[in-house]
């Protein structure tokens, strides 16, 4: 098989970067498996309980970058009790004991303690990058350890994290010798920050490209930071409150004009909207704009801002933009690829099917959508499907559960059916509104590339779930809540679950007996029953419906850190 020396093959493998491709390469023969595993630097583990850290380290001793995901997606919506699991400490401990030269750790939905951050910061000399998304369990003390001990830190990125304890001194823990920062994001921290220390840190970081501030950073500090870092590409503004006639504002306006590299803008956590004209010069070069945490920017000020953003590729916004505002987006942002519209919870703020239709007509490059709306019609979805067959991610959330098409009072089966039929490259789909088994028939028939499906309050019978399991060959993650799918659907094709990462079912019709049968047949699945309310007496009644079930394939059997209320069958 090998006509070339190993070094040559290894060099060729350097060009194979995606994990999927490298996995494929490693299956060709033993020799390629060995070369590939020794040269792999970056590993992605979609479910931290599918494999053990020791086995990962054993196979990939050259590991430099590790990405781990812990809790299932529905944990984001409080459907999973707090201490279900997802602790990263055992991974860091195992890596620290080994000779792995870890440089990058990216975690999503995991529990990270201060001790863990401390251990991380002391164990890896070349540690460069820490990215935490939707994690919990640590305080700013842990951040202080990272700042103080990671001498070559390039990236510290905290996204959507609630950190309770907030003493702004962690930022002073970066030693004077630390000049390597490229990316610093602490926008989600709620407390005060040592502004002088922050200014000095930015001043000695010539490579800083991304800076996202929290709301404790006032305008005059922002101006000073921008003076020091005109090379910024990505800026997250914390507080934007001031008097438009003040000197601070005039200075800021002038400074912002000099920041010609800014392509991504976010934040505005606190804002007085009459003063956004300072931002307009920056808008014309923006490719990414996230105003989803800025309820203070709405109405005409928002629309004025959008009109300057002709190069926008990614837009995250609140529904206070309204259908009218989305019309402006459709008119202005011809390069738009990703749109997310979040609910603001404000009276009278809403988007409907009109906004979506306008976007689909005006933005030909759009392929990724997350859309929270008041209502949707089949006609609109059919039009969207006709306008745009590029969707790879289509997530629609009609706020009123099980709401039918308000015009015809019909379920939205036909609308979603049109979407899956038209969008042949669709990989992720979230459904909402009134839906019958019919929509699942369409999904099973047409959604050939579908990898992730989210279902809530939908369907009539087991047939719905079966259409999906039978039809979607590439399905990896299926999450279902409050839908009438039961044991027949669960047990008809048990082998399917080994081809998937995980299945979540809550408030459905599956029973304890059904789950036990599944667990018995499939030893390489962990079938977890999450029982919060002591409602179920174990092994008493097979016919009892299961509140929450989470099953996933694994090579390492039941996890040893499961709390009392989690039963692995």
């Amino acid at each position, binding site marked *: 098989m090998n006509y070339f020396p190993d070094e040559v093959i290894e060099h060729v493998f350097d060009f194979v970067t995606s994990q999927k491709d490298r996995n494929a390469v490693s299956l060709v023969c033993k020799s390629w498996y060995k070369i590939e595993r020794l040269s792999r630097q970056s590993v992605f583990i979609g479910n931290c309980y599918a494999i053990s850290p020791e086995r990962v380290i054993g196979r990939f001793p050259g590991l430099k970058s590790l990405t781990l995901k812990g809790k299932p997606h529905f944990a984001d919506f409080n459907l999973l009790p707090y201490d279900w699991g997802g602790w990263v400490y055992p991974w860091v401990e195992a890596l620290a004991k080994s000779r792995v030269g870890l440089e990058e750790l990216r975690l999503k939905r995991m529990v990270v303690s201060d001790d863990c951050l401390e251990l991380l910061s002391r164990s890896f000399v070349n540690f460069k990058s820490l990215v935490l998304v939707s994690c919990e369990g640590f305080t700013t003390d842990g951040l202080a350890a990272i700042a103080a001990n990671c001498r070559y830190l390039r990236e510290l990125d905290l996204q*959507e994290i*609630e950190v309770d304890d907030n003493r702004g001194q962690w930022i002073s823990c970066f030693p004077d010798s630390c000049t390597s920062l490229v990316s610093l994001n602490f926008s989600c921290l709620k407390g005060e920050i040592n502004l002088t220390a922050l200014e000095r840190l930015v001043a000695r970081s010539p490579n800083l490209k991304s800076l996202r501030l929290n709301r404790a950073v006032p305008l005059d500090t922002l101006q000073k930071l921008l003076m020091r870092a005109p090379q910024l590409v990505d800026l997250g503004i914390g507080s934007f409150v001031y008097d438009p006639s003040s000197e601070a504002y005039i200075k800021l306006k002038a400074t912002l004009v000099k920041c010609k590299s800014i392509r991504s803008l976010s934040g505005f956590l606190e804002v007085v*909207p009459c003063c956004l004209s300072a931002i307009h010069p920056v808008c014309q070069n923006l490719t990414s704009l996230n105003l989803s945490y800025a*309820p203070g920017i709405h109405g005409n000020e928002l629309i004025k801002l959008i009109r300057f953003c002709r190069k926008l590729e990614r837009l995250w916004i609140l529904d206070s933009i309204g259908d009218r505002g989305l019309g402006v987006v459709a008119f202005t942002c011809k390069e738009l690829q990703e749109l997310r519209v979040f*609910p603001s919870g404000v009276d009278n703020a809403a988007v409907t099917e009109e906004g979506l239709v306008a976007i689909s007509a005006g933005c030909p490059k759009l392929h990724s959508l997350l859309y929270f709306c008041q209502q949707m019609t089949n006609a609109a979805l059919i039009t969207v499907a006709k306008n745009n067959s590029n969707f790879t991610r289509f997530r629609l959330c009609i706020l009123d559960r*099980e709401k039918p098409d308000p015009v015809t009072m019909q379920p939205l089966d036909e609308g979603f059916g049109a979407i899956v039929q038209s969008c042949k490259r669709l990989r992720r789909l979230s459904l909402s509104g009134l839906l019958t088994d019919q929509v699942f028939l369409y999904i099973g028939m047409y959604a050939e590339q579908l990898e992730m499906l989210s279902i809530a309050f939908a369907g009539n019978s087991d047939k719905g779930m079966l259409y999906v399991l039978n039809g979607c060959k590439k399905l990896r993650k299926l999450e279902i809540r409050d839908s009438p799918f039961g044991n027949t659907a669960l047990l008809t094709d048990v082998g399917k679950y080994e081809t998937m990462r995980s299945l979540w079912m*809550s*408030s459905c019709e599956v029973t304890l007996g059904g789950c036990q049968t599944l667990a018995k047949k499939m030893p390489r699945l962990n079938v977890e029953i999450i029982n919060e309310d002591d409602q179920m007496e174990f092994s008493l009644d097979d016919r009892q419906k299961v509140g929450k079930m989470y099953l996933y394939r694994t090579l390492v059997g039941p996890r040893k850190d499961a709390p009392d209320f989690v039963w692995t069958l």
Partner: protein
Amino acid sequence: MAFERDLNLEATELRLGLPGTQESRSNKRSLPDMNIVDDQDHRSGSSRVIANASNATKSEEETTPPSKTQVVGWPPIRSYRKNSLQAKKSEAEASGIYVKVSMDGAPYLRKIHLNIYKDYPELLKALEDMFKFKVGEYSESEGYNGSEFVPTYEDKDGDWMLVGDVPWEMFITSCKRLRVMKGSEARGLGCAV
């Protein structure tokens, strides 16, 4: 479900309004309460969610009820986002975006949007027009001189302060509500008539 009808749970249900009246649809769209306990919300019909006292009606029919009970995890947004928007909503109410204005002796209150005014003179003029009165002249040492009406506001800490003492930007972010005081009560805040 039949047995629930027999138990007449509706009679003991928590809801707003007089007994015997049907609750009408609430226009306010609030993000779901984090404290909702029971999430056994089966599609088979009546949900067994413990009703949130401020916003619930129990529906025993499958068809769309006038107002839905709140359910854990719906709408599906991350708690981080939900909490930060809710914090901002209450902050917006506290930070003077829309504040209530009361005038001693007036039969009802008004609401104004503080942000549309650029400074104190504009605000005071608007109040004067709204309630048909005149404030006196402001001085730091003596407060409002020359009128029995004194504009005051409640700040974030709950204290009643004289309007005009702090810089305008600070005022609009800390003002929770306004009150035009009159007569002898006003004198306590430094009104020299």
